[in-house]
């Protein structure tokens, strides 16, 4: 197939051109390796910090120790701020720190640390400021934290103490209440006591005791009578003689029992009489005691009245004390409530109320991992731009270029062959770079393989087509190379890789969003670092595809123009801008020059000699007049017809042109 033959020929030519080989093929590989090694450094940039201590206070030393602890910082002491600033201008120092005099933490004192930086290093200055000031801020925060912590501790202790006191107060109040209650109780009991005199009727008691004696004697008598009757019974029974043994035993036992009972009655009577005597004695004693008791009751009554009065007084005091306790409790509670309204009680939250945490959205930790997508697209862009334009320039500047036009091979075939040649070489280089990156730099873009490959193909296609446009537009290798590098540089500049876009105007920022380099590198980053899926990136792919279509159409058009330019030696711009009109409307001079209008006629009249003029204008003829009449410029034809000499004709035409109405004004 012709495409493969032409592609093979292109590859052969490239391989046999040593300069092209080195510049296009090995150059980017070397650059890529160097850049890779340069970026493959997990540690931050080394910063040289100049400092002016003014006074070597403890606080200054603390800050300096913190800075010195960072291995990326190299500290140099200066005695003078101007000297340090001078070092920044010379590029020997990145930042100067001026510590205040008497640098210490005191009440009502503000300490200001001043930084001097070179703002012109726009891509680095913020990193410097961030690195250093973050350390300073961190130390300052630590001091604040300490002081705030102390303050909060005191408040907390106070609050706790207050709570303890409140508990004690409550207990105290409860005790007071308890006492008050008990006192009331006592007062009530005292009031309820019956301390009136008692009277006991001992006379009646003696009488009753005698009555009892009488009754006991009666009982004895009757008891004995009963016993005698019982005994008489047994005698009677025995006398009867109708009893068996058992009955007899029983009768005998009964008799015995009666005898015992009788004895008992007598004993009991004796005892009872003794008791009655005792009872009489007791009654007498009781009478005496009752008299003494009444005497005591009278005294107790008096004492109870006095106690009641004192208890009331104590109760009043207790009530008053309770009220004071309540007030004290309320005051302490109020203090605690106000302390409790403090919402932020953590020292860290007060010192750093808003904490910012930078969380990487990927797990990559190497600088190179982050910039790798940008580097890959950078390599693709530059190689594709330069390679495709070089291939085309090699063809255009080659002696064989002309012969290609004589063959029945379509231009499209040549275009596709150039594309395939460039594509093939870039793919090979890319594979090689990726292998090197994987083994030496421990980085890869193989996450999300399918979409990544698609993007790489799109990127190579797009930049190859742009390179081809450049190749077809320009006529020399140098111009094409310069244009390729310029275009690549513009793409690079309008991206975030060199300078932050935020430092540029809004217009530039808007334009950069459509920068093919930015689009491809951002998309590659999304695919390799964030693992974005098709639904998240389909629009980006569509946009790049649209770019490819537009670029391809431009390649076709510009190639056509380039071919015409090559054959006709007419620049593309002139082909577009200036079309040759139909020959018939022209005035053909003998020199071959064509005159299209009065201005060109004037110009040629001024150039030609009087002798040549006579070829066109004699007494018998005026070719210029005839031509103007043919072209229906009757007014000018009349004027031209009046002229006898060349000079006169020039003057007449100049006058005519100056008097002609301005076509713009007419509108």
């Amino acid at each position, binding site marked *: 197939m*012709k495409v493969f*033959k*032409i592609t093979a*020929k292109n590859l*052969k*030519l490239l391989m*046999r*051109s040593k300069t092209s080989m080195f510049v296009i093929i090995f150059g980017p590989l070397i650059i890529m390796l160097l850049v890779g090694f340069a970026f493959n450094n997990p540690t931050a940039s080394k910063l040289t910090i100049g400092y002016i201590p003014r006074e070597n206070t403890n606080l200054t030393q603390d800050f300096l120790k913190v800075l010195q602890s960072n291995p990326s910082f190299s500290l140099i002491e200066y005695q003078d701020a101007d000297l340090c600033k001078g070092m920044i201008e010379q590029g020997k120092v990145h930042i100067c720190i001026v510590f205040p005099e008497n640098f210490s933490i005191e009440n009502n004192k503000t300490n200001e640390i001043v930084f001097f930086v070179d703002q012109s290093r726009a891509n680095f200055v913020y990193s410097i400021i961030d690195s250093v000031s973050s350390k300073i801020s961190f130390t300052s925060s630590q001091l604040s934290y300490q002081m705030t912590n102390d303050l909060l501790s005191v408040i907390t202790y106070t609050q706790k103490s207050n709570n303890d006191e409140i508990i004690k107060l409550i207990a105290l109040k409860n005790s007071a209440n308890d006492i008050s209650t008990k006192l009331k109780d006592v007062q009530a009991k005292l009031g309820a006591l019956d301390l009136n005199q008692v009277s006991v009727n001992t006379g009646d008691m003696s009488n009753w005791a005698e009555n009892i004696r009488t009754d006991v004697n009666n009982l004895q008598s009757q008891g004995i009578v009963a016993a005698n009757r019982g005994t008489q019974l047994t005698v009677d029974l025995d006398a009867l003689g109708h009893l068996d043994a058992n009955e007899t035993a029983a009768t005998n036992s009964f008799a015995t029992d009666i005898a015992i009972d009788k004895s008992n009655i007598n004993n009991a009577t004796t005892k009872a009489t003794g008791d009655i005597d005792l009872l009489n004695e007791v009654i007498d004693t009781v009478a005496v005691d009752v008299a003494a008791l009444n005497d005591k009751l009278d005294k107790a009554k008096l004492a109870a009245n006095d106690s009641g009065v004192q208890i009331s007084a104590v109760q009043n005091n207790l009530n008053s004390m309770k009220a004071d306790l309540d007030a004290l409790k309320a005051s302490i509670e109020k203090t605690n409530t106000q302390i409790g309204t403090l919402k932020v009680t953590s020292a860290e939250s007060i010192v750093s109320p808003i904490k910012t945490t930078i969380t990487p959205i990927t797990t990559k930790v190497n600088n190179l991992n982050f910039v790798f997508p940008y580097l890959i697209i950078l390599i693709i862009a530059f190689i594709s731009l330069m390679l495709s334009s070089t291939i085309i320039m090699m063809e255009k500047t*080659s*002696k*064989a*270029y*002309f*012969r*290609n*036009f*004589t*063959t*029945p*091979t*379509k231009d499209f075939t040549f275009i596709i062959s150039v594309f395939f040649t460039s594509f093939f070489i870039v793919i090979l280089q890319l594979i090689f770079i990726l292998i090197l990156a994987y083994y030496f730099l421990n980085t890869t873009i193989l996450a999300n393989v399918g979409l990544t490959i698609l993007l790489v193909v799109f990127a190579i296609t797009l930049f190859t087509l742009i390179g081809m446009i450049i190749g077809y537009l320009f006529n020399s290798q140098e111009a094409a190379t310069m244009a390729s590098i310029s275009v690549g540089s513009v793409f690079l500049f309008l991206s975030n890789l060199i300078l932050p876009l935020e430092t540029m105007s809004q217009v530039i920022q808007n334009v950069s969003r459509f920068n093919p380099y930015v689009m491809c590198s951002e998309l590659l980053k999304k695919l390799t670092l964030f693992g974005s899926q098709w639904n998240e990136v389909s629009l980006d792919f569509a946009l790049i595809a649209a770019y490819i279509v537009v670029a391809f159409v431009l390649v076709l058009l510009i190639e056509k123009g380039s071919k015409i330019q090559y*054959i*006709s*030696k*007419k620049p593309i711009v002139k082909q577009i801008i200036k079309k*040759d009109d*139909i*020959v*018939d409307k*022209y005035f*053909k001079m003998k020199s*071959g*020059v*064509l005159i*299209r209008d009065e201005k*060109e006629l004037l110009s040629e009249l001024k150039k030609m*000699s*009087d*002798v040549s003029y*006579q070829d066109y204008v004699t007494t018998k003829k005026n070719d210029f007049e005839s031509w103007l009449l043919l072209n229906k410029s009757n007014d000018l034809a009349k004027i031209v017809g009046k002229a006898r000499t060349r000079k006169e004709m020039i003057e007449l035409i100049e006058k005519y042109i100056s008097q002609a109405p301005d076509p713009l004004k007419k509108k």
Partner: protein
Amino acid sequence: MATPIFKVTKLSKVFDRRIILDDIELEINAGEIFGIIGASGSGKTTLLNTLVGFLKPEAGDVQFRTEHLLEHKDSHIFRSVFKHPDELKRIIGMASQTPSFYNTLTVKENILYFGALYGLSKDTLKSNATTLINLMDLQGSENRKAQNLSGGMQRRLDMACALVHDPKILILDEPTADLDPLLRNHIWRLVRKINKRGTTIILASHHLSELENLCSRIAILKEGKMLAIGTPNEIKERFSKHEEIHLETFPGNYSLIADIKDKDVLKEIAKIEDKGTKLVIYTSKPEIVLNELMKKLEAHKETIVDLKVTKPTLDEIFIMITESDKDVEEEKEEETDAKKKKQGR
């Protein structure tokens, strides 16, 4: 009867407001060697490029007979080269003024590559390549890079690349430019060889004397206009009825010899050129002039070293045609200057 394969009708081409080709009309016949001659800038290359369709004219057309009809001599079907460029390209081969091949490819690689662009099969390509290498005397150099070939070999390689697909028509633009006479001869021999194989050849050159013997017909271009077209003899006849008397004498007082007083003789003399080493007299009646010359020679005791009567070469006719207009222009300017001086401006 000659069969035309190219027809050019009222062809005009303009570049940057300059008319490069002005109403050109010609026909080129199959099997002939057709020469286009003209001074530098006369439009030869433009005409060739327009013939093959590279340049679109502002007016006129170029038509060619299609390949499959070339064998049918009675067929009158012609197609415009601008509407059927691919068909034309299959039957033409072109070698431009500058040899056109890849310097870093070898002879064989160049021939095979360009052959592949014509869609030739592998076998045909190989066979053609071998034939051409032999035809162009490039044996032994097949594997040499083109940039390492001599000038003549490069020119032959160029022609080989133009012939790889065995075209019916071969177009050569200044094929012998920058070559020494030996190499030029070699190239012309090759051209004849190729023509003998049936290839029509259209060539442009300003080596007029060489074309005289090579071309079947010649077209003369001057400032984009076709001055003449015909066989070399026809052109000579048309533009110069004179013959040239070349006279070399000793001691060679040519001014005395050229001072002819006889009016009858003078009117037969178109021009006398004192070349310093010889005298050249242009006349339509050489016998009358010779008679007078002999008398002069005897009178001035001149001895004839060399004397010949020839017809003018194409070169001379061309120079005559070209310079005649220039002389008129220069004379007019001199007259005007003289008038101005008289009037004291």
